């Protein structure tokens, strides 16, 4: 187990290098939330999810994942590339003209691994519910995962989905909220308080659990726990405590790096903290 964790931590270190290099290269994008969710993505794609080789849109016979808060596309793209969906060299095209790696994830350019466009917030849970429904209709006992932001909880559609899934016993669905307490204009507390988020989801009928999102062993244990709670008549919700900008000391814990790219000196300072484990693209 500890060897496995070391291996995953090595992948995470490389993904963090990819993230800061990608946003630096195009001088735009969202490093903060991407860095905070790195352990989650790596644990999901390199351990928790049952995945088929290659990619097809329908994803029958495998677990599938949707990113609702599409602005953290750098961590999604890096993870997909490192997991073999496309060549890592393509990460260099992020946010540039004629790229499959659009600012926010899309299916339009045919990038393997992406099943829905996201970026306009609040839509992922509904899509995930539909895909979970389709799995049940197809007698496919695999799971559907969806990640949302915490600021995203301010969107009304989130709560339409929150009400629907338990009422319809969508129990092949694991949703996660990146609970970093930050959004563009400041802390979620300042902008629009989420109140007792766990109690809200619980009141809607979800099986709610908490997880530390920046410790690999905790993420692995949390995802295993979440999986064990599926198939019991309720959708599962993980409140994942993370730190925006985690892994790069000067980006940590502040909303200021939500959507800002590092300059040359900042890139060098960030990369000095992140070991190159798998080879830069």
């Amino acid at each position, binding site marked *: 187990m500890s060897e496995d964790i070391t291996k995953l931590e090595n992948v995470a270190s490389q993904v963090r290098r990819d993230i800061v290099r990608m946003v630096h290269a195009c001088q735009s994008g969202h490093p903060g939330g991407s860095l905070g969710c790195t352990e989650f993505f790596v644990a999901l794609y390199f351990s928790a999810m049952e995945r088929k080789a290659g990619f097809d849109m329908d994803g029958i016979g495998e677990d599938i994942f949707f990113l609702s808060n599409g602005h953290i596309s750098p961590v999604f793209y890096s993870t997909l590339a490192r997991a073999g969906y496309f060549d890592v060299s393509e990460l260099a095209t992020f946010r540039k003209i004629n790229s499959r790696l659009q600012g926010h994830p899309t299916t339009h350019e045919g990038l393997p691994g992406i099943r829905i466009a996201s970026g306009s917030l609040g839509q992922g849970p509904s899509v995930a519910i539909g895909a979970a429904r389709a799995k049940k209709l197809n007698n496919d006992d695999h799971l559907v995962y969806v990640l949302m932001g915490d600021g995203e909880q301010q969107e009304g*559609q989130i709560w339409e989905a929150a009400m629907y899934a338990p009422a319809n016993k969508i129990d092949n669905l694991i949703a996660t909220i990146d609970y970093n307490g930050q959004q563009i204009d400041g802390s979620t507390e300042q902008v629009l308080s989420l109140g007792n988020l766990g109690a809200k989801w619980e009141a809607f009928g979800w099986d709610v659990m908490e997880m530390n999102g920046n410790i690999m062993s905790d993420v692995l244990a949390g995802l295993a726990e979440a999986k064990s709670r599926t198939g019991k008549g309720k959708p599962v919700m993980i409140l994942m405590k993370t730190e925006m900008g985690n892994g790069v000391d000067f980006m940590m814990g502040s909303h200021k790096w939500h959507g800002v790219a590092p300059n040359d000196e900042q890139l060098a300072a960030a990369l000095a903290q992140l070991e190159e484990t798998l080879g830069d693209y």
Partner: protein
Amino acid sequence: MKKYTYTDKKDTRSGFGAGLLEVGRKNENVVALCADLIGSLKMNDFIKEFPERFFQVGIAEANMMGIAAGLTIGGKIPYTGTFANFSTGRVYDQIRQSIAYSDKNVKICASHAGLTLGEDGATHQILEDIGLMKMLPGMTVINPCDYNQTKAATIAIAEHHGPVYLRFGRPVVPIFTDSDQKFEIGKAWMVNEGKDVSIFATGHLVWEAIQAGEQLAELGIDAEIINIHTIKPLDEEAVLKSVAKTGCVVTAEEHNRLGGLGDSIAQVLAKNNPTPQEYVAVNDSFGESGTPAQLMEKYGLNAANIVAAVQRVIKRK
């Protein structure tokens, strides 16, 4: 003028209900969703026969569009059902991102479109939906004219991969198209060949155009009437061929004159063959409560308005 008669009248939404049942029997991947308007959308027969393939979403249209998009991932062909207003304006961003931009095979089925929804008034009478939907890249926009055509269209769209907006209505109207017709997306239907004016009509206005054609014949005007059931992709060839013969155009639709069928036709003509055109459409306003017939008269959408528009446009040739 070719003679059109009818022996029965039904609402186009019932054509949708009948088509949904039939396409459900033909294709096991067809599933249906509704946002608390099962009776209004005539979905009962489908639900009775395929309860496991129907999803009641409640009054949550945004969630319905997202769930529909998700259902396509796994090979399902979802038909969503609610009023046209709640199928478009209310959920535009969900359709734009999760369905159109993501190229999802969702059929957005919209009843109670336009003024003929009647007494509920302007909150529910959307007159902008054709424009909203046709602006989305990749979206097919269909507005059939009677029960039989709506049924045929409902069945045909399952065979087309990609998002479709299917628009129909509430009132009982004459059934004048064939019950065994083959519906071809994007292929205009020649209702009556003529030489003096081209009348391009869609939805409920097709029957009004036929009535107008008969009145025009008595006035010695030989009107060509073409049913544009598919507004996007538009049958440009049929439009240009007709206009080359007649030299003037009237468009007729139960929609705002901004952004509807008339503008689609005008764009084709401006590029290829600039031609005098008159619009029979709602003149950039909201509707109001009233009976369908009262509203069609007050807002200038009946046969008499088409006749007057023809007389105006012929003078501009």
